[in-house]
Structure formats: C-alpha cells, structure tokens
C-alpha cells in the first residue's frame, strides 16, 4: 500500500529519503502519478514538501537558483528567466506546465526531459541534500550519469550562472506533432562571445542518448571561432560525436541521426525550423 506524508521542511524530506529506499518525492505528480495510475507503483511512501524554499526562485543576481518544486508555469511567469521561456513552453500543454516541476524534469526519461537539456547547456548544478545536513552542488552531467543508480538524496534546487546576454542562449525542440508533441530531439546552446568570437560555448542534446548529453565535438568546433558559415559547417560535421539515440515510438535512431545536424545548423544560423 502507498502512504503519503507531508514534510514541512526540506531537511525532513531529505532525512526520510536518505533512510527509506521506498520513499519517493512527489511534486507536480506528472511522473509519479503516472506510475500510480498504471499500477507500477504500489508500495512505499510518497513525500509532499510544503517548505516554501522548495518553490523559490532567485533569478535577479549573477547566480540563479531555482527551487526544484518550481513549475514550468512559474518559470514562464518570471521575466528574469526569459531565456528559459522557450524550453518551459515546450513542456506539455498549459495544464501540464501548471504541475510539472524543474526537479521532476531532471528525472524524466528520454525522450522527455527537454528542460534539463537547457539546464545542461547553461552549466547548471543540482543541489542534492542527503540526510539532515545542508545540500551540496553536483554538476548536472554527473547527476544525470548517476541518476539511474538512485539514492543520491533529495534534489532541492538547481543553480547556474545567469547568461550575460540572454540572446546568446538558444533552444529548439523538434517534434512531429504541431503545435506540441514529444521530442524527436531537442538542442540547447549557450554561445557567449567576446570580440566577435565564441568563448567556451556549451551545446546539449535531448533524446540523442539515454540521458541529456553535452555535444563536446560541437563545442570544440565552435570554441574561439566567429559564428560564421565555416564554423557552423564544422559544428554540423561534429554533431553526431558521442550520440547514442534510441529507436522508439517517436522516431528511429537513424532518423534522429539524420536530422540532428540539419536542425543544429539551422539553430546556430538563426534560421526557422
């Protein structure tokens, strides 16, 4: 039988999660309640967190912190997070966006989890609290690599450096159904420039590997170069490095590989899809 317990503080929830492997956090419910409705989750304890810190956003300074319980609708309502509006709007319809949280998206299985792709391109860290102590920041890539192992503790927030220039952050979700569908793939790119040249660009993909991944080949191809036709061509040639897309009901692995360089090139060139 499933029990539900409310926790007034993040510490309380973290303590329970660390000590009980059958305890699971429920926030928006878009992942957990699916499992309950399908009869796949029948035992254990669901934890609800009522701590206001869980739904807090600090986005005005240089370091942005978004509570794991913040919903996509809350991101869309926040002008300081305008660069994240495209990925937030890409998640479901209005009802899903009222419910789905940033923290939940970190656990969404491919081909879902498009918001996490954006966070990866921003170089985000995940704040994980194990036990009753304070949280520690884990690079999102490391967090995703260890996600399937579980037992990392309670995700309380994500943090990242605010992009100096929001127009240097790009995001595109490719789906077959318009206006909204599950991702064939998604691409996020943070392309800071200095003196007309790209400086440590970060590019990330969704649905091109078992978890959202960095496109390191593309980053190498772009770093230090002006974002011109030659650089975009080099990025397209390096686009598939490290990818391991799946074949699922949305697309075959072949199709994903075929269209990725095309959409990457269009995104970088600022062309419509």
């Amino acid at each position, binding site marked *: 039988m499933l029990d539900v317990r409310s926790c007034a503080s993040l510490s309380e929830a973290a303590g329970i999660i660390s000590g009980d492997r059958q305890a699971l956090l429920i926030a928006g419910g878009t992942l957990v*309640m699916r499992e309950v409705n399908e009869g796949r989750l029948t035992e254990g304890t669901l934890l609800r967190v009522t701590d206001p810190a869980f739904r807090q956003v600090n986005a005005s300074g240089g370091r942005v912190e978004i509570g794991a319980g913040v919903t996509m609708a809350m991101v869309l309502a926040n002008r300081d997070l305008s660069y994240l509006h495209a990925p937030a709007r890409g998640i479901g319809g209005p009802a899903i966006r009222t419910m789905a949280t940033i923290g939940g998206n970190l656990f969404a299985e491919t081909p879902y989890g498009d918001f996490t792709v954006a966070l990866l391109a921003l170089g985000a860290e995940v704040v994980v609290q194990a036990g009753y102590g304070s949280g520690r920041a884990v690079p999102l890539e490391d967090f995703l690599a260890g996600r399937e192992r579980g037992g990392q503790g309670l995700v309380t927030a994500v943090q990242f450096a605010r992009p100096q220039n929001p127009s240097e952050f790009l995001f595109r979700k490719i789906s077959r159904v318009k206006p909204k569908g599950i991702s064939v793939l998604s691409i996020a790119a943070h392309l800071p420039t200095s003196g007309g040249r790209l400086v440590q660009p970060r590019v990330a993909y969704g649905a091109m590997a078992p978890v959202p991944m960095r496109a390191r080949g593309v980053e190498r191809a772009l770093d230090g170069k002006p974002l011109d036709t030659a650089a975009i061509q080099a990025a397209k040639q390096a686009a598939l490095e490290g990818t391991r897309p799946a074949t699922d009901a949305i697309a075959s692995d072949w199709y994903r590989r075929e269209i990725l360089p095309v959409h990457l090139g269009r995104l970088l060139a600022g062309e419509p899809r």
Partner: protein
Amino acid sequence: MAKLPVQFRLNGSDRAGFVDPAGNLLDLLRRGLGDFAPKYGCGQGTCGVCTVLIDGEPQLSCLTLAISCEGRQIETASGMADGPNLHPLQQAFMDNFAAQCGFCTPGMLTAARALLAKNPNPTRDEVVEAISGNICRCTGYEPIIAAILAAAAGGAGMRRA
C-alpha cells in the same frame, strides 16, 4: 490502510469525501462525488480529458493527489452552465459543432475557460496553444478553435461563472 478525509469547494459548493492516501482527484470526483464531467482517458497526462481548474489554474485531475486539494477551489465543466442557461463557451461549442463524440469536450471547455479568464481576446495561435494539451480525435480541432474564438468575440472571457 485507512482512508483519509478531504474537503474542498467543488463548483461553488462545499464537498467532502474519503480517499486512499495516494488516490487521485479524478477518482474522487467521479466515483466519490458523482461529477462525471472530467473523464479518465490516458492516466498519463497526455490527453487532457480530466482537466479541471484548481484555484483557477488548469490541472490534470488524474495526476493530482486528491489529498493535496484540501481547502482548495475545484471547478469542472459541470459547473459552467447556470441552470438551463449554457455558459457562452458551451453555447459556442454547440453553435460551431465543436463536439462530435463529446469525450474531449469537458476538458476542452475547461482549458478554454482557463484561457479566456486570463486572456479575454486571444489570437488564434494563443487558442491553439491553450488546447495543445487536449486531444480530440473527431473534429480536427478547427471547429473547437472557431468556437473558442467566437466565445471570446462574444465576451465569454468577461464572465466568471
């Protein structure tokens, strides 16, 4: 495990019921309280037929823990008509042949109601976006979009029924 009590306002009336701790709101509305407007479609958050308003915001009742609704305002399509008088959105759906089998209609109406409450004069693109989480397999969406735009043109967004 013992059932838990939950109380909330449903379409303007105080209602209460007992639920399993992890029971969803849709189950309580349909089986516990007899409100059959929201439907069970996919149980996964894909189809939108279970859409209700919780404190004015559209949410999927099949993915909402019933006990999380304690003390909140729930509105379903059942509460839209005023006795024999249809809500302008319902009238517009009828006038524009926006319902065929009718299964998606309560969810569509609720999604449209949420849109017009915030944006009384939406563009076509905004209407399309507002119902993007609601699946209809009969109409091809065009009559639904036309109905919502017609209701907006007639001032449906100004009425908070």
